[in-house]
């Protein structure tokens, strides 16, 4: 490590007050500047922050975007999820490989490029997509890959790749992204005009308890997926003892196929921040943190600017809107590539500068959250709903949607349809109606709620989207008849194995076993008893896993087995001679044969 790097790191640590809880900011900063966090850098950071070195290494090695080994100047990360796989992922991968002259997870000898894949980056409506450092490139094809690499070779500056910016704030000078919003349907709650301060002014005229009561009367339930009643969560947190309290906004949006928070962050940041501020007022919190997934780093400057404007207008900071004693401010915490950090206790761990392991519950965040203080964690969209509830009234809000699921829901629609994008629909809409709305004529299967949700077929298309029937954090992926159900399931299991934090046995090991069995079945080595094997293993993982990841990760297999049994049955066959089809004699003795100097072992078929 040279002197410049040493002084860069020391200054960075100082600017974070040498606070070990700011470790994420520090390692993300070092990675950004040097394309790695070397062993020496870890030692220095550990010494500056007073942490064991292994704790720094623990965090660096946990997050996908951080690395101990040297990466290239430009890190190309091709989005790998089922939607990208449907729209030319293999071709694009090959094109990049050829243009760059390297394979996956390699760096060019000149140190200029590293080529990798990454889990869903929230661009399924403009797939195939990739990240070039923090710059998003969308709608890739083999020709554009050639041009991109050509242009990067000249200046190694991904920002120059953005020739034409997208609509709305994607063209804001602080965003400058080629991303499109694709807002296909504006409902009454999220995508209407909003004047910053409008809701807050009304809220501050009420007592904190009245604010909570409004949220309860509106029957608001969390939009992140689980649907917990927001008012109740706030009440618990308000009642909990603590010198400090925190409001956290979950903008990790890692569930493959979900991208609605991206569009809210781009177009309605004031609605989010205002909801967070109202929450702070309601529960008596002075500090808010918005956890922004690393994939959305391109929005960071814009969001910070919005916060600055709010401070300047008296909507954040001391004595907000002149209200004595109400001080509240918000900072943004960047993530670094880990789906698990969307789980609320893992999100808190990450904000605390730890690896993104979920925490044991109880205690719940409402009792002991960030740094041990009572903490509210809500989804981006939930906070937006709060702003509107206070702006227009609880009664107005509850008129939309159904009794058990009031309001509207943003859906991120992708896959086989003419108009992928974001739709704001009232709760209670049926799958049929939705498919018609998005231009999907020949739909065979729909994945509701992303991989952790369920895969349903035509028999279920009359069912409705709401908390009591088909619940979703927002993802709706559409598949036509010519898609291979097991390929979809495989992509999802690959994802869960990749994203498990590895803390608990059933999730860490069980998902690998599910994935392996699925691969065998797809390779034609399945036998009828495999169905029972998958079911029982899947149920065990769901029942015994420690957090929501493992408690839902077998869903792709379990729900596809229930709704598309033929996809499995047609691949399973009983071996007539009673052999185990999965047993491969050659493979089993390969190592022994190699050591003994034999070639292939021959046996009769």
């Amino acid at each position: 490590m040279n002197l410049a790097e040493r002084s860069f790191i020391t200054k960075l640590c100082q600017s974070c007050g040498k606070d070990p809880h700011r470790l994420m900011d520090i390692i993300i900063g070092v990675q950004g500047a040097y394309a790695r966090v070397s062993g020496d850098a870890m030692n220095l950071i550990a010494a500056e922050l007073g942490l064991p070195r292994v704790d720094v290494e623990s965090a660096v090695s946990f997050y996908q975007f951080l690395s101990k080994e040297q990466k290239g100047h430009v890190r190309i990360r091709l989005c790998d999820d089922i939607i990208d796989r449907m729209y030319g992922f293999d071709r694009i991968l090959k094109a990049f490989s050829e243009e760059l002259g390297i394979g996956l997870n390699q760096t060019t000898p000149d140190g200029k490029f590293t080529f990798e894949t990454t889990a869903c980056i929230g661009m399924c409506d403009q797939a195939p997509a990739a990240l070039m450092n923090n710059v998003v490139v969308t709608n890739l094809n083999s020709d554009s890959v050639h041009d991109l690499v050509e242009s990067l070779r000249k200046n190694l500056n991904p920002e120059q790749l953005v020739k034409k910016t997208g609509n709305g704030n994607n063209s804001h000078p602080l965003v400058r992204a080629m991303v499109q919003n694709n807002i296909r349907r504006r409902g009454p709650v999220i995508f209407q005009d909003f004047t910053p301060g409008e809701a807050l002014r009304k809220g501050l005229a009420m007592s904190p308890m009245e604010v909570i009561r409004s949220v309860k009367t509106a029957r608001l339930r969390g939009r992140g997926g689980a649907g917990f009643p927001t008012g109740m969560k706030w009440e618990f947190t308000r009642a909990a003892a603590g010198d400090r309290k925190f409001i956290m906004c979950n903008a990790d949006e890692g569930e493959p196929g979900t991208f609605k928070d991206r569009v809210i962050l781009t177009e309605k940041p004031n609605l989010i921040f205002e909801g967070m501020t109202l929450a702070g007022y309601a529960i008596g919190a002075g500090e808010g943190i918005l956890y922004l997934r690393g994939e959305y780093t391109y929005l960071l400057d814009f969001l910070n600017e919005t916060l600055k404007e709010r401070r300047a207008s008296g909507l954040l900071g001391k004595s907000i809107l002149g209200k004595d004693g109400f001080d509240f401010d918000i900072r943004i915490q960047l993530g670094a590539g880990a789906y698990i950090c969307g789980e609320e206790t893992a999100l808190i761990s990450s904000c605390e500068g730890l690896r993104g392991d979920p925490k044991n519950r109880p205690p719940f965040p409402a009792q002991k959250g960030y740094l041990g203080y009572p903490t509210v964690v809500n989804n981006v969209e939930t906070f937006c709903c709060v702003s509107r509830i206070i702006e227009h009234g609880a009664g107005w809000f509850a008129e939309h949607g159904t009794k058990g699921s009031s309001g509207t829901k943003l859906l991120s629609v992708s896959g086989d349809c003419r108009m992928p994008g974001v739709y704001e629909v009232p709760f209670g809409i049926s799958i049929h109606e939705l498919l018609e709305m998005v231009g999907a004529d020949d739909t065979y299967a729909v994945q509701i709620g992303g991989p952790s949700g369920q895969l349903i077929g035509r028999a279920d298309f009359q069912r409705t989207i709401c908390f009591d029937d088909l619940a979703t954090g927002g993802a709706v992926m559409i598949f036509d008849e010519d898609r291979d159900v097991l390929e979809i399931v495989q992509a999802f299991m690959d994802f869960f194995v990749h994203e498990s934090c590895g803390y608990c046995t059933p999730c860490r090991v069980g998902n690998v076993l599910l994935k392996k069995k699925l691969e065998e079945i797809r390779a034609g080595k399945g036998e009828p008893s495999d169905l029972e094997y998958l079911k029982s293993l899947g149920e065990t993982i769901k029942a015994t896993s420690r957090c929501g990841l493992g408690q839902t990760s077998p869903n792709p297999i379990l729900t596809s087995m229930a709704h598309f049994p033929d996809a499995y049955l047609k691949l399973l066959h009983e071996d007539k001679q009673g052999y185990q089809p999965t047993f491969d004699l050659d493979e089993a003795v390969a190592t022994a044969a190699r050591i003994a100097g034999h070639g292939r072992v021959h046996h009769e078929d």
Partner: protein
Amino acid sequence: MSNTITFSIDGKEIECKAGRTILDAAEENGIYIPRLCHRKGVSPHGSCRVCTVIANGKPMAACTTPVTPGMVVENDAEEVTAMRKAIIEMLFVEGNHFCMFCEKSGNCELQALAYRFGIAAPRYPYLFPHREIDFGHPDVFIDHNRCILCARCIRTSREIDGKEVLGFVERGPRKKVAANAEHGLRETEIAVGDEAMAACPVGALMPKHVGYQVPIGKREFDHEPIGSDIEKEAKASTK
């Protein structure tokens, strides 16, 4: 007394102090709940999930879940046993456990649990991962092939020995224990007399030079299944 609460395990009414975990409360009453990552005296971890019970109808880790008044716990139930067996089998196939020539054999809690549950061979395919052995320290070594990621060494070292010699790195199936140094254990302050050395339930973190010294027949689990000590104490006290 306001700070004792009553609950039940397998239909048996039990009293315990408020704030106790299900596992501790059971143990105080002579009921053994199988466990691997849990170790007395250090903070609970909740990672192995072998202690899974059904509490008020929901599967929960007994080592991290506090008892609540009137809680109904199922421990000795077919469904619970099936889940525990599955988890133990997962641990066996995840690593490379060759008990027949392992120096921990007979004193290994993973092996002892397999015996207690009557597991002869796991139903899952072995994953045979390639894992390393850190043999650089003069007195101790880590054989990652046998590590079950219970964090008992990490917690014991930090909480009892007051040292920072180990931690976890990587995530998911690649997660592993790592030394608090660039080049392995030899650069740390670990010592063979550390409590952390005694904390490893399997043959992963081991002292050098003393393998196979206890003859078969005198090893910890040679005569009675793991957990018998807890169950026996109960029988003795009720007599």
